[in-house]
C-alpha cells in the first residue's frame, strides 16, 4: 500500500508546475534508478551537453587547420578517432560538432514550441483564422521536412541561423497541428464548460484551464522535435546545405568521410555514432516522459511497482 501511495505522490495526475519542477530532479533520479535504459540515455545526453558547452576548449588541436602529411590516419593513441582527408583530427571535429547539433536542436525545439503552442491556442478560438491557418499548415506538412528546408536554405543562403529558421518552419507547423487538436478536445471538457459558466474570459481559460492540461503532450512532443531537428541538421550538412564545410558538424564530417569510406572508414563512423547515440538518447527520454505523463501507462507502471 505504501508503495502505491509513494508512487502516486511521485507522479500526481498533474500537480502545478512549481511542485512538478521541485519534484523533477528527485523523481527523475528515482525513475532512472528503476530504469537503466533511461539512466544510460540521460547520461549520454548530459555528456553531449557537456561537450556542446566545453568542446572548443577541450579540443587538443586546431580543428580547422589542415595537415595533409597526416591525412586519413587510422585511430591511434594521438588521434583517437583518426584524421580526415585533410589531416584534421576527427575526435576534435566530432566533439566540436556536438555544439552545432545541440544548438540547432534546442533552438528549433524552443522556437517551434513557443510559436506553435501560442498560435495553436489563439487559432483554436477563432474559427475563420483556424481554417485558414490549418490549410497553410497542411500545405507546409505536405512537403518532406528536408526538402522544404533545402528549398528555404537555397533561397536564404546557408548559415547556422538559416538552418535553425528553415527547420523551425516545419517543426512549428507540426506543433500547431498537434496542440490545436489537444486544445479543441479539451475545449469540450466539462471543466472548461464549467469555467465558461462562471464567466471566465477566454484568455484566462486558455492560460489557466487549457494550457496546464496539455503541458505533458507539449513536453513529449518537444523531445521528439529535438531528436528530429538534430537529425535534420546533420542531413542538411551532409547534403552541403547546412553550415560551411570548415565549421565541423556531424553531418559534414560524415559527408567528408563518404568519399574515403574504403580507406578511412573511421571518418564517418565516429560522428555517425555520436549522432545515433544522441538521437536515440533523446527519443528514449521522450518515451519515458510520455510513459510517466500518460495516466493509463502510469497505472500499469504503478501496478508493476506495487507487485515488486
Amino acid at each position, binding site marked *: 500500500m505504501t508503495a502505491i501511495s509513494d508512487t502516486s505522490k511521485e507522479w*500526481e*495526475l*498533474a*500537480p*502545478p508546475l512549481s511542485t512538478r519542477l521541485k519534484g523533477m530532479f528527485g523523481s527523475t533520479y528515482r525513475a532512472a534508478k528503476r530504469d537503466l535504459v533511461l539512466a544510460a540515455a540521460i547520461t549520454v545526453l548530459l555528456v553531449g551537453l557537456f561537450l556542446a558547452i566545453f568542446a572548443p576548449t577541450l579540443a587538443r588541436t586546431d580543428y580547422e587547420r589542415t595537415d595533409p602529411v597526416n591525412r586519413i590516419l587510422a585511430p591511434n593513441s594521438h588521434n583517437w578517432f583518426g584524421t580526415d582527408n585533410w589531416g584534421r583530427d576527427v575526435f576534435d571535429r566530432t566533439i566540436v560538432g556536438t555544439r552545432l547539433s545541440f544548438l540547432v536542436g534546442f533552438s528549433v525545439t524552443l522556437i517551434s514550441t513557443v510559436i506553435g503552442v501560442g498560435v495553436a491556442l489563439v487559432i483554436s478560438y477563432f474559427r475563420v483564422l483556424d481554417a485558414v491557418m490549418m490549410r497553410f499548415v497542411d500545405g507546409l506538412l505536405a512537403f518532406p521536412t528536408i526538402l522544404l528546408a533545402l528549398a528555404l536554405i537555397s533561397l536564404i543562403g546557408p548559415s547556422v541561423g538559416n538552418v535553425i529558421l528553415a527547420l523551425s518552419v516545419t517543426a512549428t507547423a507540426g506543433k500547431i497541428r498537434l496542440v490545436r487538436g489537444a486544445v479543441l478536445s479539451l475545449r469540450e*471538457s*466539462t*471543466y472548461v*464548460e*464549467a*469555467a*465558461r*459558466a*462562471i*464567466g*471566465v*474570459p477566454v484568455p*484566462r481559460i486558455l492560460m*489557466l*484551464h487549457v494550457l*496546464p*492540461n496539455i503541458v505533458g503532450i507539449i513536453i513529449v512532443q518537444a523531445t521528439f522535435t529535438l531528436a528530429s531537428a538534430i537529425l535534420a541538421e546533420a542531413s542538411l550538412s551532409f547534403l552541403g546545405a547546412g553550415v560551411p564545410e570548415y565549421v565541423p558538424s556531424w553531418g559534414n564530417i560524415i559527408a567528408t568521410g563518404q568519399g574515403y569510406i574504403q580507406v578511412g572508414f573511421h571518418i564517418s563512423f565516429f560522428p555517425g555514432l555520436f549522432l545515433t547515440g544522441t538521437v536515440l538518447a533523446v527519443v528514449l527520454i521522450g518515451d519515458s516522459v510520455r510513459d510517466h505523463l500518460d495516466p493509463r501507462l502510469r497505472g500499469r507502471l504503478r501496478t508493476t511497482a506495487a507487485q515488486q
Partner: protein
Amino acid sequence: MTESLLKVENLRTHFRTDGGLVKAVDDVSFEVQQGETFALVGESGCGKSVTALSIMGLIPNPPGEIVSGKIELDGVDLTQLSFGEMRAIRGSKIAMIFQEPMTSLNPVLTIESQLSEALKIHTDLSKKAANDRALELINMVGIADARTRLKQYPHQLSGGQRQRVMIAMAMSCTPKLLIADEATTALDVTIQAQILDLMKDVTEQSGTALLIITHNLGIVARYANRVAVMYAGKLREVGEAVDMYTEPRHPYTVGLLRSVPRLDSEKGAPLAPIAGEIPDLTNLPGGCAFSPRCRWAVDRCFAENPLLEETSPGKKVACFEHASVGLNV
C-alpha cells in the same frame, strides 16, 4: 406572489445537423419566481439541458442557435446582450452546476484557486479576501477539514465532495439564479439527497432561485415548488409540484408517474412504462409529438398540435383531452 426573476418567452433553440434541423427547444415559455425552486422534468433528449444552456448563453454556435424568443432576467433580455455583457452575468447573476462532478473541476488547479476564480473575475476582492471567502464557502457546503481540502486537487476528493465544491463555486458570487443540470444524477442515492438538501439550503439562505433540471420525479416531489414537464422540445404541463402528483393532466406526466415505483402503490401492481420511444427530433410526428405513445389520443391529436393553455389557476396543460386524463385508468 413575489415577482418573477426569470422569464422565458417563446424560446426556440434549433440545431442544424447533418440529419436535418433539430428543434431542441421549440416555443418554450415559463417563469421562475424570485427565490423559488422550479423543476424542469423530462427524459433524455427532450430539450431540458438545451433550455438551461440557452439561459446561460452557452449554446455552441454553430450548430446551435437561439432562433427567437426572449430570456429576461430581472427585466434584461439576455439574448440581446453582447458576448462580454453575457460573460459578466455568468457566474455573478446566474450560475450552473453540471452533471459530471468527476470532470467538472480542472485537475491541475487547487480547490482554493477554483473556488475563488469567480470572485477574482466578478469582484474587486483582494487575493486574500477571495481566499477567505473560499474558506467560508467550503465550510458552507459542509466539507470537513476545510483548510486542508482547499490546498488539495480535485482527484483527492470524492464525487460527492466535488459536487459540493461545484455548488460552493456556483454560489460564490451569490447569484440570483442557480441552474442544476442533472446535478445529482451521477452520484449515488444517499449522496443525492444530501446534495439536494444542500442546494436547497444554500439557495434559501441567499434568496437564490433554483432551477432543477432532472428526469427524476422523486427529486421534484421533495424539492420543487413548481414543475414544468417537457417532451420533444415543448412544455406539456406546468403547475404546482403537489398538483403534478395528485392530479396530472397531461398523458406524458401520467406516464412518467406510473413508471416510477411508489411506496403507496398496491402491492404487486406492475409498473407501467410508457410504450414506444421518444420520437426522432429531426422528424417529429404530425400533430402532438406524444400522440403515437398516448393512450388517450384521438384523431385530432394526430393532426393538430395542442397549445399550452391554462386549465385552472396556476396550471397549464398542452393536451386536447386534458379533462379526461388522470392517474386512475
